[in-house]
């Protein structure tokens, strides 16, 4: 390889270092009020724990909320919907198991025999949500897309009002 090619390669690598450093530390998302977060959620490839906390709390309270992440988590923890020892932050990627746990606790779903005997965990919660058609099939550690979260929140709101998720009422 000629010297010129080596020099060009080194320059390209050096130029790429700051770009990679920027990718590792993304800027925190700006605060979005009213319905803007729903439209952003529709475009997102991966929903976050912060998105789920805001949406589930809105469903539980029956009103739109613009509170920040700390207030939402504090409220949800007080209601027993999320566990304080999860150690999740706002930008943590949301999994189907975590979302199912929040939905079951938020809607006060007692589940079947196993969940009643051994208590709720993410796996049982996901099976219960799939059974009730609140969440599409998947695994506990599968990431949730923004559109999936929108559908789950819609199903949860319908379930809260009607007691089931019959397609007629969605």
């Amino acid at each position, binding site marked *: 390889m000629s010297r010129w090619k080596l020099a060009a390669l080194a320059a390209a690598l050096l130029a790429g270092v700051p770009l990679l450093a920027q990718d590792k530390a993304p800027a925190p998302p700006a605060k979005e009020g009213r319905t803007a977060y729903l439209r952003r959620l529709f475009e997102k490839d991966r929903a976050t724990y912060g998105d789920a906390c805001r949406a589930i709390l809105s469903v539980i309270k029956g009103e739109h909320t613009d509170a920040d992440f700390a207030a939402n988590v504090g409220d949800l923890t007080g209601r027993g919907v999320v566990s304080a020892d999860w150690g999740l932050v706002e930008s943590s990627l949301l999994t189907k198991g975590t979302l199912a746990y929040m939905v079951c606790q938020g809607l006060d779903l007692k589940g079947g025999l196993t969940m009643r005997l051994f208590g709720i965990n993410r796996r049982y919660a996901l099976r219960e949500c799939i059974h009730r058609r609140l969440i599409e099939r998947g695994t506990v550690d599968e990431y949730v897309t923004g559109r999936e979260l929108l559908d789950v929140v819609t199903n949860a709101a319908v379930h809260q009002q009607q007691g089931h998720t019959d*397609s007629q009422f969605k």
Partner: protein
Amino acid sequence: MRTRAPIVLVLVMAAFADGQDAAKREELEATLVAFKGTVDVKRPEDKDWVAADRNMKLKRGSEICTSVASAATLLFTGNLKIEVRALTQARVDELAKQGGAVNSDVRLKFGSIEVDLLKGDLRTDMKVSAPNSTTSVSGSNGIVRAPATEGGCRITLRTTTGTWNHDASGVGRDIFGSDVADNYGNQLRDFRALADSHDFIDFFGRDRFELYQSRFTTKAGDAAPWDVPFFDFVNNSPTSGRIKRPSGLPLPPGVP
């Protein structure tokens, strides 16, 4: 030169006809007559989304977005009312009057809308573009839901207003509401066998099973047995004592 003259004449006549059609077309505006909760609107002249206000006019190209526990009611024409339900984003793609018919297209990005036909419609056709969307219609009221994961759907509504006279019997009467019919007196329920599950006039039944095989023993609002918890199902099943009805006349007195 002689061969070109007819062609030029046809072209001129076609252009004139187009001009006449364009003159007949009249753009309409939907009115946001009521809303609750958090509702945002973006009209073509708006740079960003703004909070909805009552009696706001939404012309073609306007978008509306509702949050949790929110809803908005749009009056398209005097007879066509659309309720945008919670967690929905929709866009008015078309709303115009042409001749005696009103054509309206609603692009549902996600969520659900409820179409409500009021008095005075001679005939209304509803078409839902995406086969994966859910449509359920009871009488003159229809609910269309498009899951976000399916990418939404487009709803086409064609409404014709007028009256229908039954020439054969000589009895004229207005057709409106749940008696919506076509020019021949065929009511919408007569068309269910002609329409596919996601074709025009998807008005009765949720799916092909209900359209073709069931006898509509349940009302539109009834839940399917598998949608309710097991014990509720047992308690509400037809054989449970609480709701069991006598299947026929009792035995005559004197029978042992």
